[in-house]
C-alpha cells in the first residue's frame, strides 16, 4: 500500500498528500481554503510546484474538472527578493 | 497505421518493411543505399533538403521521407544531417554487408577497430569491423558517421555499435 504520508506535495511547508486528502475527505475542497489551512503554495517557491499537484488531487477526488478549478492569484514579487535589494542594493560595503 | 512499435520504442524489420519500401537485392549490392527508419509524420525536412540528387521526396514538411533508391548515390549526407539519427546506409558485399550509422558517443572508433554490434533493442548480436569513419568535424550534420562491416544476415539487424572497453 502506498503511504501517502510519505508523499510530499509542498516541499516548502512540508505538506503531504495525506494531509490534503484528509481535508478533502472532511469536505474542504476549495483550493483557497486548503491553501490557507495547510499553507501549500505559501512558501518560498510561491506555489510553483504544489498548486498544480493540489489541483490534480482535488479534481481526482471530487470529480471536478481541472479546467474549473480557479488557481490562486500570483502575487508580487513573482520571485522572492531580499529586502536589502528592494531598498537599493547591498553596495554599502 | 498500427503503431505497436511505440509501446516498445523500436521497430521490427517486418514493421519497417510495411512502412518503407525496401531497396531491391540488386540495388543493395550495387552501392550503398540510404534507408530511413522514420515512421512518424513529423515536421522535419533536412534529409530532403540536403540530398544532392533529390532522391528523397517529401511533399510537405510533415510527410515521411521516401527514398528513390535508384536515384540515391549513397553519399551519406542524410545520415550525417538527420536530427533523429534515423537514416542508415546499407551495402551488400557478398558475405558481408556494410552498415553506415550515426555514432554520437565517445569513444569514436578508428578504421580497422573491431566493435560490438547492437540491434534495435540494444542486444549484442556479434562483432564487426569498422571500415570508414567520418569524424564530427567532417560531417555536415555535426554527427560522426561510422561504416561497419557485418555478416550479411545481420544487415537489417545492426543499428548501433559499442566500442569495446579495455580487455573486452
Amino acid at each position, binding site marked *: 500500500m502506498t503511504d501517502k504520508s510519505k508523499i510530499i506535495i509542498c516541499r516548502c511547508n512540508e505538506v503531504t498528500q495525506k494531509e490534503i486528502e484528509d481535508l478533502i475527505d*472532511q469536505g474542504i475542497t476549495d483550493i483557497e481554503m486548503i491553501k490557507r489551512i495547510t499553507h501549500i503554495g505559501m512558501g518560498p517557491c510561491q506555489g510553483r510546484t504544489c498548486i498544480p499537484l493540489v489541483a490534480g488531487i482535488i479534481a481526482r477526488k471530487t470529480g471536478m474538472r481541472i479546467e474549473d478549478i480557479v488557481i490562486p492569484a500570483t502575487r508580487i514579487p513573482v520571485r522572492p527578493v531580499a*529586502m*536589502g535589494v528592494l*531598498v537599493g542594493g547591498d553596495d554599502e560595503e | 497505421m498500427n503503431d505497436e512499435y511505440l509501446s516498445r520504442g523500436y521497430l521490427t524489420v517486418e514493421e519497417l518493411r510495411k512502412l518503407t519500401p525496401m531497396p531491391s537485392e540488386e540495388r543493395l549490392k550495387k552501392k550503398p543505399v540510404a534507408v530511413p527508419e522514420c515512421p512518424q509524420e513529423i515536421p522535419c525536412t533536412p534529409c530532403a533538403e540536403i540530398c544532392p540528387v533529390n532522391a528523397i521526396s517529401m511533399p510537405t514538411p510533415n510527410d515521411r521521407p521516401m527514398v528513390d533508391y535508384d536515384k540515391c548515390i549513397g553519399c551519406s549526407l542524410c545520415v550525417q544531417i538527420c536530427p533523429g539519427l534515423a537514416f542508415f546506409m546499407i551495402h551488400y558485399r557478398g558475405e558481408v554487408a556494410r552498415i553506415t550509422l550515426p555514432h554520437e558517443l565517445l569513444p569514436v572508433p578508428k578504421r580497422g577497430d573491431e566493435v560490438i554490434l547492437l540491434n534495435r533493442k540494444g542486444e549484442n548480436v556479434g562483432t564487426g569491423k569498422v571500415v570508414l569513419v567520418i569524424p564530427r568535424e567532417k560531417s555536415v550534420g555535426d554527427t560522426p558517421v561510422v561504416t561497419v562491416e557485418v555478416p550479411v544476415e545481420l544487415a537489417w539487424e545492426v543499428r548501433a555499435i559499442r566500442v569495446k572497453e579495455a580487455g573486452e
Partner: protein
Amino acid sequence: MMKNKVDVAIIGGGIIGLYTAYELHKRGVDNIAIYEKNYLGSGSTFRCGTGIRQQFGDEANIRMMKRAVEKWTGLGEEINFPKFKMAQTGYLFLLYDEDEMSRFKKNVELQNSLGVPSRIISPEEAQEIVPTLDTSEVIGASWNPTDGKANPFLAVHGLARYLRENGVEINEYTEVRDVIVKGGAVDGIKTSRGEVKAEIVLNAANAWAKIINEKLGVNFPIEPYKHQGIVSEPFKKGEIKPMVISFRHGGAYLTQKANGGIIGGIALKYGPTWDLTPTYDFLREVAKNFTRIIPALKYITIIRQWAGYYAETPDHNAVIGKVKEIDGYYISAGFSGHGFMLAPAAAEGMADLITKGSTSLPLDFYDPYRFERGELREQAVQMG
C-alpha cells in the same frame, strides 16, 4: 439545497459574520444562515495583519479589546479546535520622540486603569524582547505582554466547522443582492441562488456593506481603502515574537507568524477604491521601513505581497448597531482595519443586541448614527 427560511440571515462570511453566528447560536438561536459571495474569509479577514491588541487610546476600544482577548484565548477549547490558539506575544510600540512618549504614557495610564497590564519600557528592555531591533534612536517603548496575534485561517476554519456541525447553514459563493423589506421591516433577502425569508438580517459585509445599505436607502460612511501587507520566507522562530510597531517608519507593523515568516505592512493607503492591485511603491517602502527597524531583515526575502480593504469610517471606528429605519436590520461593519481583533467582542455585543435588545459592552461608541449627529470619535489608531 439552500434553506428558504431562516431566523437570522448574515451577509458576509468573514470573521464578523462567523463569530456573530457563533454567539447567536450560543444564545439559542438555531436557524441561522451565512451568505458569502466568495469563499469564507476572502474579503478582509484573510488579508488582515493578524494582530490583536488592547493598547488603544480610548475606553471603549480598550474595554472591547480586553473582552475580545478573553474570548480569543478561550475560543480553541470552546469550539473543540485546539489547533487554534491566540499567541499572547505582546505588542511593542517603538517610541522615538517625547511627543510619542507623552501620548503613550497617557494611554498606558488609561489602559492600566481598565486592567490592561501595559507599561513603558526602556530601549534596552525592548531589545531584550526583540534582540535584532536597531534601538539607536529609540527612546522607549509601550509594551503589553497580553496583546498578540492569531491565525485568521484557523479561526475561520475552526468556527465554520463548529457552526456547520451545529446546524448553522453556511453558503459560500452565494451573493446577497438585496434585502427584501415589507412594511418597514425586513422580510428576507435576495441571493444569487434565490430568495430566503428572514425577519432578522445582519449586514456583516464590511467593505461591501454600503452596497447593500444604498439599495435600502440607508447610508453610513464606510469606504473601501486599499491597504497592503507582505509575508517573508521563514527564519528561526522567536526572533520577532511581538507585533513591533513604529510610527516613525511609515506606520510599520510586523511580527513573525507561527511558521517563522514575517507578516506585516505599513500605513501607505489608497482610496477610496475597489482596486486591489498590489503596488510596487509599497514593496519598496515596506522593505525600507522594515530594515530600518530591524536591519538584519535586509537578508530576508519577501515572498508575497497582497492588498485588502480597510472598510474605513471617518473616525476609523466601526459601525455596529440596529438600523432604525428598517426593523430587523442590523449592521456590524466598517471596522477600519480592526475587524479581526475586535470580532469576538463585536459579535458578543451584536448577539446581545439581537437577542436581548441591549448589551453590557460599550457598543454605543460604535453607534451608526454618530456621523449624522456630527459626533466623531477620536480616531482610533489603525495598526496591525
